[in-house]
């Protein structure tokens, strides 16, 4: 304790203490000298003898100082000062090393901040680790997610014991009819516990009450987001109690609450919330077999995911017994909310994290190489320091401190890089990051960066540091600074080159595979031709609005016409078809890849053998106009599209995709075969007759639809208010967007348009995750290639300069330029070859880890080979240039150079 205090004081007063020590020792010398003088020695001899008698002054002074200071802290201070001085003395080296480290560390920081931003704790809800989603699923050939039905949900809620509460949630679009243009609003249908589960309370008014969850008496109430309230109600403080009209149902809803700013619901885009009781018609809500939404739940404290799962499994088994028709093979999947929200980003980011770590390793190898080269020229300095009494540990510590100072400088520059990189990444990312996940260079990221850079410092400092220990001091002192480094150091440097090459190979192969995989994805036939197609969605009001004013006073009021679309789809189609540049127009209730998903229905084929519930055939139903197939260039394998006469709600004509035929009538003529909706032949639905067969269309995902269920097409008959429009154009499709918008508004200004995009953009957005990863992998691979080449070039140049004398002798003895070239290049080629072999082996081993990001490629792909060839070529060039220089060595100069 006392000693500690002494030392603390010493930190403050160290100048004074240093001076005191000098005085004390000077006094000792003076006394000793005086004694020797009285013994009869000359002044010089006395001083000499006194020094000899005393021992190594510097060393003893240092030891003494250690008594009253924190020795490690003290020497650390010295080391840092010394390191900064040495780095300043060789600015070229410092610049190259700091730059390489900045690229590596900055990249790691940037990717880490993204990974960190989507950790589960980033969810803006209290105790987010306990939030889960419950998904109904079904065991077919594999387990498929289906969501919950309302009766199932009620049973889960009543029977489960693992959750604090469960709330049904689903998100849909609703059209808000305000004073201005109608607007489509992302709306969440939520059961009352939803808000308390998420731990959010309204800023104004209230949220829903349990009584508003009763399907028989749905309450037409709405809670608004802060943004919507400000945008459409001008932040009116009196908004509670006002009503607003939401179309589709064209009903009046009473505002009961406003949420605080920043709350956008589970979908992260919601602007309104309405009670879940409004989700569907009472009859649909009562149907246990109609499934589609997920439920939000919060695990009770101390209940594990596994315990909750077995709880739900027991409930599922009971329901299966009670309702075998609808619940056979049905179970519940409990999935943490963080996985649901961030799951798709995670594998890509982790791959990128690994890639960028490789870049950093290559940068470290480069810096270590530079440091080794330097430590060889510094052998004398180090030998002198050893001679002056520096311990081995002390020297090592100094070298590591130097490299840590270097890496911290690199980290500082890297942070600047990372700042720029993160904002660019977020801006460019085709994958949307949740609005609340804001990657930022916060404390955690800073700590990560510091930890990484210190680890690098240790790594790159220890390699040359361990080498620097030359026990043979007298030799080191005698040797000229230019003399060659030992065999051992050459071996280490060669190993570093091999490591760099193999890391670069892994990254290049990875990037090559990504590029190839994305090309496979985009070259994939989606079942239609996405080029030169514009798509948009419109919501056509079902009923005409009341006439503005009676035609004339006194005339008897006409009987009100039956509800009908204000503008029929066909009228809209005719107007759009007339636009110059439009070749064909078609309409469907949904469009391929519009992420609407659609829902599948059971169907029965005429004459099919009985099937069990697991194997019950399902189809996705689309309603389309006859030109739909030709507009999207969906090929007919057999038969034809609908005739005009078949465009009616009662038409029995149906076009099926080839999956239906493959299952029920393989090898037969399917035209004229019949099928109907419903799970059994006894269903009361009318039979539908197949008039045409088309190829499979990737409606729901690329590269594959999530399930193999086929599609069928029925004629579009204006029964649907939400429509998708496709226009095949003869001009670039995006150039027509403004015209199309104007035409639709001219037809009826109350029709909201949304999702206007070219079909190519739709396809691209589906493959965006892969392309994002590919792009970054490409960047990292380019960095890796650059760093590796710089490293190889550096090492080869150095080796050549080391062997100048040997090369000179060879030339003098009659070797020609070719021989020298072969000698040097051969040397480098061996290292590169070994590196490539290791790198390829590692690529194969690592391929498994990225397989989820790849489509249709393996590490044996040609793209990987191409990447290796590029690397080999560039690396050989990096060897060739120094080798060429070696051939120009003049034997005379070379021999004189020692």
């Amino acid at each position, binding site marked *: 304790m*006392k000693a500690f205090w002494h030392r603390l004081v010493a930190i403050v007063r160290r100048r004074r203490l240093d001076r005191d020590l000098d005085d*004390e020792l000077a*006094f*000792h010398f003076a006394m*000793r000298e005086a004694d020797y003088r009285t013994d009869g020695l000359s002044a010089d001899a006395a001083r000499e003898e006194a020094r000899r*008698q005393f*021992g190594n002054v510097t060393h003893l002074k240092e030891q*003494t100082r250690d008594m*009253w200071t924190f020795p490690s802290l003290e020497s650390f201070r010295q080391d840092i000062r010394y390191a900064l001085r040495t780095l300043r003395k060789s600015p070229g080296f410092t610049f190259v090393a700091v730059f390489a480290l900045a690229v590596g560390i900055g990249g790691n920081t940037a990717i880490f901040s993204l990974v960190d931003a989507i950790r589960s704790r980033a969810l803006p809800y209290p105790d987010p680790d306990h939030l889960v989603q419950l998904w109904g699923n079904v065991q077919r050939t594999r387990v498929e997610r289906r969501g919950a039905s309302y009766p199932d949900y009620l049973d889960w809620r009543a029977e489960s014991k693992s959750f604090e509460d469960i709330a049904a949630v689903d998100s849909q679009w609703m059209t808000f009819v305000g004073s201005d243009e109608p607007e489509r609003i992302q709306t969440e249908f939520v059961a009352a516990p939803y808000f308390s589960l998420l731990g959010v309370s309204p800023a104004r008014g209230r949220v829903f009450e349990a009584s508003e969850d009763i399907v028989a008496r749905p309450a037409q109430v709405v809670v608004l987001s802060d943004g919507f309230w400000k945008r459409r109600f001008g932040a009116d403080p009196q908004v509670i109690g006002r009503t607003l009209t939401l179309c589709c149902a064209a009903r009046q809803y009473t505002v009961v609450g406003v949420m605080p700013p920043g709350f956008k619901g589970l979908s992260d885009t919601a602007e309104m919330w309405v009670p879940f009781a409004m989700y569907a018609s009472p009859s649909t809500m009562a149907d246990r077999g109609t499934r589609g939404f997920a439920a939000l739940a919060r695990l009770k404290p101390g209940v594990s995911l596994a315990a909750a799962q077995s709880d739900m499994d027991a409930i599922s088994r009971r329901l299966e017994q009670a309702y075998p028709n609808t619940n056979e093979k049905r179970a519940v999947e409990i999935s943490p909310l963080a996985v649901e929200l961030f799951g798709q980003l995670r594998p890509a980011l982790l791959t990128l994290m690994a890639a960028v770590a490789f870049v950093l390793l290559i940068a470290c190898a480069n810096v270590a190489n530079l440091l080794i080269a330097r430590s060889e020229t510094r052998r004398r300095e180090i030998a002198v320091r050893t001679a002056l009494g520096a311990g081995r540990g002390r020297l090592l510590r100094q070298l590591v401190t130097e490299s840590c100072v270097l890496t911290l400088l690199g980290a500082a520059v890297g942070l600047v890089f990372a700042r720029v990189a993160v904002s660019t990444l977020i801006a460019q990312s085709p994958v949307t990051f949740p609005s609340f996940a804001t990657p930022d260079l916060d404390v955690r990221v800073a700590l990560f960066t510091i930890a990484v850079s210190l680890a690098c410092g240790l790594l790159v400092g220890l390699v040359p540091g361990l080498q620097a220990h030359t026990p043979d001091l007298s030799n080191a002192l005698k040797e000229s600074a230019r003399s060659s480094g030992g065999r051992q150091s050459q071996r280490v440097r060669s190993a570093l080159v091999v490591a760099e090459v193999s890391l670069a190979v892994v990254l290049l192969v990875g990037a090559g595979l990504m590029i190839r995989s994305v090309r496979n994805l985009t070259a994939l036939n989606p079942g239609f031709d996405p080029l030169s197609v514009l798509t948009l969605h419109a919501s056509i009001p079902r009923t005409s609005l009341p006439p503005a004013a009676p035609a004339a006073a006194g005339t008897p009021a006409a009987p009100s016409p039956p509800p009908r679309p204000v503008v029929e789809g066909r009228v809209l189609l005719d107007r759009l078809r007339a636009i110059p540049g439009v070749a064909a127009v078609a309409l469907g209730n949904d469009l391929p890849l519009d992420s609407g998903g659609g829902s599948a229905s059971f169907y029965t084929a005429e004459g099919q053998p009985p099937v069990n519930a697991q194997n019950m055939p399902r189809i996705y139903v689309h309603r389309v106009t006859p030109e739909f197939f030709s507009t999207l260039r969906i090929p007919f394998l057999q038969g034809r599209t609908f005739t005009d006469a078949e465009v009616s709600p009662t038409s029995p004509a149906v076009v099926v995709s080839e999956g239906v035929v493959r299952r029920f009538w393989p090898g037969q003529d399917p035209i004229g075969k019949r099928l109907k909706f419903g799970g059994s032949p006894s269903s009361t639905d009318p039979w539908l007759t197949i008039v045409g067969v088309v190829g499979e269309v990737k409606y729901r995902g690329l590269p594959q639809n999530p399930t193999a269920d086929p599609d069928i097409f029925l004629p579009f008959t204006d029964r649907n208010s939400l429509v998708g429009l496709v226009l095949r154009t003869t001009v670039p499709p995006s150039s027509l967007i403004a015209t199309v918008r104007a035409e639709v508004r001219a037809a009826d200004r109350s029709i909201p348009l949304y999702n206007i995009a070219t079909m190519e953009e739709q396809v691209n957005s589906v493959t965006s995750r892969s392309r994002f990863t590919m792009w970054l992998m490409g960047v990292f691979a380019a960095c890796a290639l650059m760093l590796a080449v710089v490293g190889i070039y550096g090492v080869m140049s150095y080796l050549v300069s080391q062997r100048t004398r040997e090369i000179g002798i060879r030339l003098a003895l009659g070797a020609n330029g070719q021989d020298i070239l072969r000698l040097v290049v051969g040397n480098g080629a061996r290292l590169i070859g070994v590196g490539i072999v290791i790198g390829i082996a590692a690529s194969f081993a690592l391929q498994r880890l990225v397989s989820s990001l790849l489509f249709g490629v393996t590490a044996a792909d040609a793209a990987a080979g191409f990447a290796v060839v590029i690397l080999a070529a560039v690396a050989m060039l990096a060897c060739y240039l120094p080798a060429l220089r070696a051939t120009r060595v003049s034997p005379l100069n070379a021999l004189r150079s020692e």
Partner: protein
Amino acid sequence: MGETKKATAVGDMLPGTLDMLILKALSRGEAHGYTIVQFIHGASRDVLKVEEGALYPALHRLEVRGLLRAEWGTSENNRRAKYYRLTAAGRRELEAEAAYWDRVAAAVTRVMQTA
């Protein structure tokens, strides 16, 4: 330099004994470093050769441990010198060390005299 240490040369000290000798030297009154060296050399009849430099780390260590107090004063030849003095703790430490040393020395002697 290349100084390599031989295992035991005459006059080399057993580890830890230097501290004890310093305390002993100071038990006769305050002194500066040079006097302490002279005392050890003289009292041991030049058998114990303290490497003079090694004295100072030891003095500072004892001071930090609170066994010695140091003061700057003026020497007999009118120079600024640092004088060390035993503290009470230093005196106790010296007694303990001396007793320990006696026991060990006697034990070693007995072992060596066993026929």
